[in-house]
């Protein structure tokens, strides 16, 4: 009967002539054998592929990814894929620190959009994934543009979230209004849907303490009037388009936002059916359903209420790192993850609704999955724009840019404050920032 080397060492433990030190070593091996999960037993025969991500810490999502990892590990005998990384809040900073120190200690990186852009363009650590696209015969979604450089594609979406208007159809019916299709209409319907403090017309994050979430939403408000936050190294914070967009935000804030309320409390109000609409990403629906399952049947979505219907689409791609010693394995893993059946399973388990490519055309399972989700419509109607497209060179300092905008924008929310004055002040600070990037 063949024995593994680990097993051989285990038998040697019981040799009566063994020294004390040998006994201790053997005991340690036995202990380790008992503790280490069985799948690791095969690790010695396989090359370990490290996937750097935050998903292993995400409740409600890690199960889907763990299942995908298991499937990959069973599908072949050459590689063993394992997690590495940190929770989302610490993820980007840790990856940037590693990249700045010379390299990312992984084979595959899952990244937030701005981190992906840095990995590809600044650190130049990404490997083109065009061979995978060709082999699978897939057409990546329009949001993948920012992952391209010199005509090559360097990332494929693992998670894609975009913005649209999520609304409570019951509250809309009670107020006799329909989802807005223009900016003016949006303010009007928001006011009609507001009966403070019992009911609020719209959920918009509005405190610096929830700054990450606030900027995440506010970043969209350059789009209603076809503006941008920056072009190259030139900030456009006080451009007429951006100022008008932020004036729209301010009008909504005054018409129907729970002002000064923490993001968590706003979500609770929405889940309790006390907020009529939210401008949020598709997982908002999942969070609301988890908080209050009764609200779920009332939720629908509509495209962003402006002519272009453009909203930010945050693709979190898988990137094969060109510094990997197992680059072939990294490519094989990404190809496996992107294959229609595997991706359809992942999307169904994790309730992801924005596919990385024309998945509905390739997977009946995914088509069926989408069919019983009427709330997806608005998200699918939204036109995808990557944050990189509206941030220019500031995409690498997205957080800092956002902080400057929000801190100054708060002046506009004080009595007597105007958006134009606030954005003029922000523009000056952003120009100083431009000199440093």
């Amino acid at each position: 009967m063949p024995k593994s080397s680990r097993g051989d060492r285990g038998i040697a433990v019981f040799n009566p002539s063994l020294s004390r030190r040998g006994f201790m070593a053997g005991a340690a091996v036995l202990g380790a054998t008992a503790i280490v999960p069985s799948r690791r037993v095969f690790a010695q025969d396989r090359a370990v592929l490290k996937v750097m991500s935050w998903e292993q810490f995400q409740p409600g999502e890690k199960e889907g990814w763990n299942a995908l990892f298991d499937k990959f590990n069973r599908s072949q005998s050459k590689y063993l894929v394992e997690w590495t990384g940190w929770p989302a809040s610490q993820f980007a900073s840790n990856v940037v620190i590693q990249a700045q120190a010379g390299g990312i200690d992984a084979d595959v990186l899952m990244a937030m959009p701005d981190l992906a852009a840095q990995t590809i363009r600044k650190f130049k650590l990404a490997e083109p994934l065009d061979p995978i696209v060709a082999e699978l015969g897939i057409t990546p979604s329009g949001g993948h543009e920012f992952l391209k450089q010199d005509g090559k594609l360097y990332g494929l979406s693992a998670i894609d979230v975009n913005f649209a208007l999520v609304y409570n159809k019951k509250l809309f019916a009670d107020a006799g209004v329909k989802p807005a299709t223009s900016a003016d209409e949006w303010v009007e319907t928001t006011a009609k849907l507001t009966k403070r403090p019992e009911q609020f017309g719209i959920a918009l994050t509005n405190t610096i303490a929830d700054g990450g979430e606030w900027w995440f939403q506010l970043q969209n408000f350059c789009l209603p009037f076809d503006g941008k936050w920056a072009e190259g190294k030139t900030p456009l914070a006080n451009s007429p388009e951006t100022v008008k967009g932020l004036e729209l935000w301010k009008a909504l804030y005054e018409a129907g936002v729970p002002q000064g309320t923490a993001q968590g409390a706003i979500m609770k109000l929405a889940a309790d059916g006390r907020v009529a609409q939210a401008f949020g990403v598709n997982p908002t629906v999942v969070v609301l359903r988890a908080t209050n399952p009764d609200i779920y049947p009332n939720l629908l979505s509509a495209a962003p209420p402006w002519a272009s219907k453009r909203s930010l689409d945050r693709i979190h791609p898988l990137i094969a790192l060109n510094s990997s010693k197992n680059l072939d394995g990294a490519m094989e893993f990404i190809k496996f993850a992107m294959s229609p059946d595997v991706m359809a399973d992942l999307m169904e388990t994790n309730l992801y609704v924005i596919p990385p490519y024309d998945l509905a055309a390739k997977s009946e399972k995914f088509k069926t999955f989408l069919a019983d989700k009427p709330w997806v419509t608005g998200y699918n109607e939204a036109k995808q724009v990557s944050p990189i497209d509206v941030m220019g060179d500031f995409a690498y300092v997205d957080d800092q840019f956002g902080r400057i905008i929000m801190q100054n924008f708060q002046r506009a929310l004080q009595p007597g404050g105007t958006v134009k004055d606030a954005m003029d002040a922000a523009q000056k600070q952003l120009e100083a920032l431009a000199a440093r990037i």
Partner: protein
Amino acid sequence: MSVATISPADTSRRSLVDGKALPYLLILPALALECVFILYPIVRGSLFSLEGPAGDLGLDNFRFMVADPAFWQMLKATFIYVLFVDVIILLVALAVALLMNWSFRGRGVVRSILTVPWAIPDVPVAITFVLMLDPTFGVFNRLARLLPWVGDNQQWLLDPTLAMATIIIVTVWKGFPFYSLVLLAALQNVSDELYDAARVDGAGPIGQFFHVTLPDIRDTIALLAVLAFIFSTQQFTLIWLITGGGPVDATTTLAVAIYLQAFRFYNFGYAGAFAVIGFLISALATIAFVIIQRRLAREE
């Protein structure tokens, strides 16, 4: 027999252990730890401050810092926060310590209850206060509206002045038990004979406080003032979770600014420059404390 076997090496080892080298040998492990965990990070951090965005070494970060209005706004916010926290926390702590020094029924229970704010971790405190300060649903506004002159809901965390006042109040509420306990211990060491003598000299309660109590606990107050200064300069969790440094950067203190630059904006060099300023401020406070303490000791 044993004398005959002592070698010169043994002799020198013994003289090393018995002689002047012993104290140095004994502090060596502690010194090594200090070097690795304190001195090295300080030196490394200081070197970081010399590193520009492109990895070049120089004083660019400091030059940029001096020209950056946000830096001066941050220093102003830090100064206001530290000053108010220091003064208020010591006044509240002293008042509470004096109350707790009185003999009354249930004093032990009250003392235990008073330590509760200090015992609760920062994060639940911050979250609870954020909910209590909510302009629409928070209990603070419900109570405020009971006052005849308050009509509208106060935007506690959206108004720059109120936000600063709020984090000062929360910091004081969270920290005063520690200072109270230390002051209480100092108060209990004040000799009763001194009070008797003061009473004989005709001193009333206020006179006793200013002529007996205060001079006797002066050193403790000075020490606590320095500690409060250092702790409030370093305060991050409460400020970050309650206001995030806003609104309009009104509560972005030194600790928040360092965090933002280092871990949100990845400007490690610039964060290093801020940290050097923070280190200098804390070091100056400590030196000031030592000087004051020496002067007081000389006066005594």
